[in-house]
């Protein structure tokens, strides 16, 4: 895999996110990488997917220009509909959303995400909170989690469950896939299992970066690298590498 120099980890994550969207699906789109993944899926294998944004925007095309937030004017211009937050949340609660994307500061093997209080051992750090994360985690038919893969973020038990993962009595959905900076994992039925390692990442590296046991069947697969077409889309959509540069862009924290 000599291709590693030709794309960034984040570009690979965008590609992996896009592949989680099937054609004609209704997608609850987040910002950053999932937003790019949605646009990529639309441009390639899922041309009839529809995107919902929690502020009430419904789109079937990516925004015409680069956006920093889902409320930015280019995301409204040309939208199919601008409805209320409760209208899109109602569609989510009805079960009409096939897949939603969420991220967090901490994750555990059941797919619980913490975006509220982090750093259980040291001085606790207050994070911004749920936003729509709890709702997507509770109500989408399946969720795709996107995470930085670091030991302090991959914990046996998160210190606070902001967005619930798998738990007994869950009525619908739950985390299906976890895409990290190191690999892709299946989380279905509450079983955390390696699906693929990103190119040039070793299983030992993943195990060292994970605060709990990583299950894997035999020799792990390798995450399919981006195609030229996929990369071209991403670089058109994020020309400055704001979201997809290897060093997190100005929007990072």
């Amino acid at each position: 895999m000599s291709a590693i120099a030709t794309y960034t980890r984040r570009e690979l994550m965008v590609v992996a996110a896009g592949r989680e969207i099937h054609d004609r699906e209704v997608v609850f789109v987040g910002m950053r990488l999932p937003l790019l993944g949605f646009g990529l899926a639309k441009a390639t294998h899922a041309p009839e997917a529809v995107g919902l944004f929690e502020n009430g925007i419904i789109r079937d095309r990516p925004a015409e220009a680069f956006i920093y937030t889902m409320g930015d004017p280019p995301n409204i211009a040309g939208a199919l509909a601008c409805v209320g937050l409760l209208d899109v949340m109602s569609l989510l609660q009805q079960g009409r959303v096939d897949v939603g994307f969420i991220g967090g500061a901490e994750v555990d093997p059941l797919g619980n995400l913490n975006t509220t209080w982090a750093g259980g051992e040291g001085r606790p750090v207050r994070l911004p909170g749920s936003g729509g994360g709890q709702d997507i985690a509770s109500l989408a038919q399946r969720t795709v989690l996107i995470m930085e893969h670091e030991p302090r973020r991959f914990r046996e038990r998160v210190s606070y469950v902001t967005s619930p993962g798998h738990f007994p009595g869950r009525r619908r959905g739950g985390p299906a896939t976890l895409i990290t900076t190191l690999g892709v994992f299946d989380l279905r039925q509450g079983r955390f299992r390696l699906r693929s390692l990103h190119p040039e990442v070793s299983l030992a590296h993943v195990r060292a970066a994970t605060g709990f046991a990583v299950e894997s069947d035999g020799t792990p697969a390798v995450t399919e690298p981006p195609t030229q077409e996929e990369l071209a889309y991403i670089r058109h959509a994020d020309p400055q590498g704001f979201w997809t540069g290897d060093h997190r862009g100005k929007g990072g924290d």
Partner: protein
Amino acid sequence: MSDKRQSLGDAIAAHVHDADAIALGLALESGIPFAAVHELIRQRRRDLTLIGPISDMAFDQLIGAGCVTRVIAAWVGNVAGGSGYCFRRALEQGIPHPITVEEHSNFTVGLGLKAAAMGVPYLPTLTGIGSDIVRDHPRIRPQDDPFGGPPLLAVGAIRPDVTIVHTQRADRHGNAHLWGNLGLTLEGVYAARRTIVTCEEIVADEVIRSDPNRTVIPGLLVDAVVEVPGGALPASVQGYWRRDFETFLGYHGRSRTLEGYRAWLDEWVLGIASRDAYLAHLGQPALDRLRVRDQRLAAAANFAP
């Protein structure tokens, strides 16, 4: 209806009191009434409760200025940047003083406002089952389905004393047109005891009446209407202003330290008399970059009877 036009200073003085619960930032990232937020800081309101879904940096600024004792929200930070440092300092270190947070998700804060808007004590939901947010929550309780289905959660009504919104245009009675993001605007206005509308333009009554479906905010719910062009900056207003990303980012960087926040506040709020002065301080090149001059008009809609 009566003429409800006021200056921003008078509107805040008349309708927002210490210890009030204030909803703002209801359209999420756009249309945040920053001019009103800064006026609240200048008028030194204290002991406020802030209500909103994701507040972008408006809540952070109010918390840092010592105006706030309680937050009812789903997310407090700076959308482009991440953490809200004043929020963090208040919760992690009690600076400038401790505050409490009633945790919500976007959906539950919306349902709380909707319950108040509908005039019922609660609304049922499926969201949050399995989350720590709803554990021992003061406003979210288990509730049986009277039709025999699985248990639900009941989200209690959230009733703001005042809701503040920024829209594109309104008439002098407060009937306001809003387009683009709606978010929880309607719920926040219907739920509130009082509403202040700031807008880009106060227009003739007939402009509003020409399109009653665009009137998201009926004047009968409005107590004051204030013409404040650019009153949402650095947030965007569809068709009027782009998002001023540099200001969000500048605040994010400078508010990382307490000293930096104070200097920012002096420069952009306390040392600024009005929104006009804010725009002047922003400078003409920035205004030229931010003001929308293109036209992309909505297709005609004929209301002839």
